[in-house]
């Protein structure tokens, strides 16, 4: 057991290297997780932006948190897909019959999701800077933003893991992500919720994305975050724990 533990991190980093190669060799993935969110940002800032009243003069500042979340929500379907393909093609069976840390194969995918999203965030923020994004946030605030983004990524990644591990077909493995893709649009990510009809507004104000967006927005603007950050953390941790438990159950069932 001791030897297995010692190897867990190196096994996982080999797995990480493997699936990062998958990402960099898939144009489709790169377009979806990085180019698309940037295209949304361009579209909203330069096409719709002029007509949107957010009460701030810098719409890029207003928009960026939502764009970062869109990068996460559009990337998780690929995590589910990669996991599903590994189960389907028998490479998981090879890993599991080898003397390596058993869950390294699964954790490799989770880590890949974190690392690839981190790369997307950096690229998106660089583009945002060129487009006029400015932040007065200090190091601590940036760390808090990174923490929230990482937690949200992890939470959605474990949801993706449930789908990837229990799906019966490729389509099934990624279908779960469609409702999640819509969450940023029905939130305060692009426009303030005040102008929405009451039912939509009630939904928008009480779903996880709004509190996460508001918390990140306040942190980046150097403003007090208030309650939003606690609501955001509660959502992220709650989803994370529940999804993790279900994903591990699905994993144990599949990997006997």
């Amino acid at each position, binding site marked *: 057991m001791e030897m297995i533990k010692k190897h867990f991190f190196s096994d996982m980093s080999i797995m990480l*290297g493997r699936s990062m190669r998958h990402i960099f060799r898939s144009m489709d993935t790169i377009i979806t997780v990085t180019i698309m969110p940037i295209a949304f940002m361009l579209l909203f800032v330069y096409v719709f932006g002029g007509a949107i009243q957010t009460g701030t003069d810098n719409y890029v500042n207003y928009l960026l948190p939502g764009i970062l979340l869109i990068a996460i929500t559009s990337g998780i379907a690929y995590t589910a897909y990669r996991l599903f393909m590994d189960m389907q*093609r028998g490479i998981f069976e090879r890993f599991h*019959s*080898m003397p*390596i840390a058993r869950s390294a194969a699964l954790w490799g995918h989770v880590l890949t999701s974190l690392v690839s999203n981190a790369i997307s965030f950096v690229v998106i923020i660089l583009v945002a800077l060129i487009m006029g994004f400015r932040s007065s946030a200090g190091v601590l605030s940036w760390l808090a933003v990174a923490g929230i983004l990482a937690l949200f990524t992890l939470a959605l990644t474990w949801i993706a893991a449930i789908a990837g591990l229990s799906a019966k077909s490729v389509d099934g493995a990624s279908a779960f992500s469609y409702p999640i893709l819509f969450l940023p649009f029905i939130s305060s990510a692009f426009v303030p919720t005040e102008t929405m009809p009451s039912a939509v507004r009630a939904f928008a104000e009480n779903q996880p994305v709004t509190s996460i967006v508001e918390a990140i927005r306040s942190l980046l603007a150097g403003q007090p975050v208030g309650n939003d950050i606690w609501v955001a953390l509660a959502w992220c941790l709650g989803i994370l724990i529940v999804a993790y438990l279900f994903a591990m159950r699905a994993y144990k069932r599949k990997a*006997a």
Partner: protein
Amino acid sequence: MKDTAIQVKGLQKSYKQLHVLKGVDLEVEKGSIFALLGSNGAGKTTIVKILTTLLKQDSGTATVNGFDVAAKPDNVRQSISLTGQFAAVDEILTGRENLIMIAKLRYLKNPRQVADDLLNRFGLTDAADRRVSTYSGGMRRRLDIAMSLIGKPQLIFLDEPTTGLDPEARIEVWKVVKELANKGTTVFLTTQYLDEAEQLADRIAILHEGKIIANGTLSDLKKLFPPAKVEYVEKQPSLEEIFLAIIGKKEEQ
């Protein structure tokens, strides 16, 4: 006893209502090629999965290289390699990257050298830096088996290694399996092709309806064939005839 690579006693396994293994007993000698023969759905893969620690049996015992599969799965995994029913290769990586990845996971000193040697040995050097998705079925299978040889495991499981291959690729795989056995590796092979068992195996066991109904060398099995009555031409039974005859007899009982 020391020369036993695999020992299985009273192995049982059910999937919900389906009773797949109903008390399987078998023994595989070290350094031999053992073929487990059976039709689709007979439970061959289930046995392989239990022996390679991917699945837990409901009852019975299985020992691989002296380690109980249920109690000491880590030791079992140390000493075996599995080439599953579907080529377990990474299609997006190149052949070389696949081999290096496995060599790293087995903590070998020089993963690149290991990969080069195996690419050479399996005639994949020219295709080494192409993505596996561009490989033919035979090349994929060869890479798959090459990946299983990394770290020189004492015992290799090949679950239907030639299913879906063309005759030429099949002969290539046979050659590889024979070479392995010549070098002292124990090979546990499952197949639904009777000629494959006939070609390769030192011992053959026939799995039918969850039990081993015959087990022995090819000439042992030939003795089970009903003796010819009055015939003018002496005819050696093919293994296929033996197989069908034995199954038919069991079903009548």
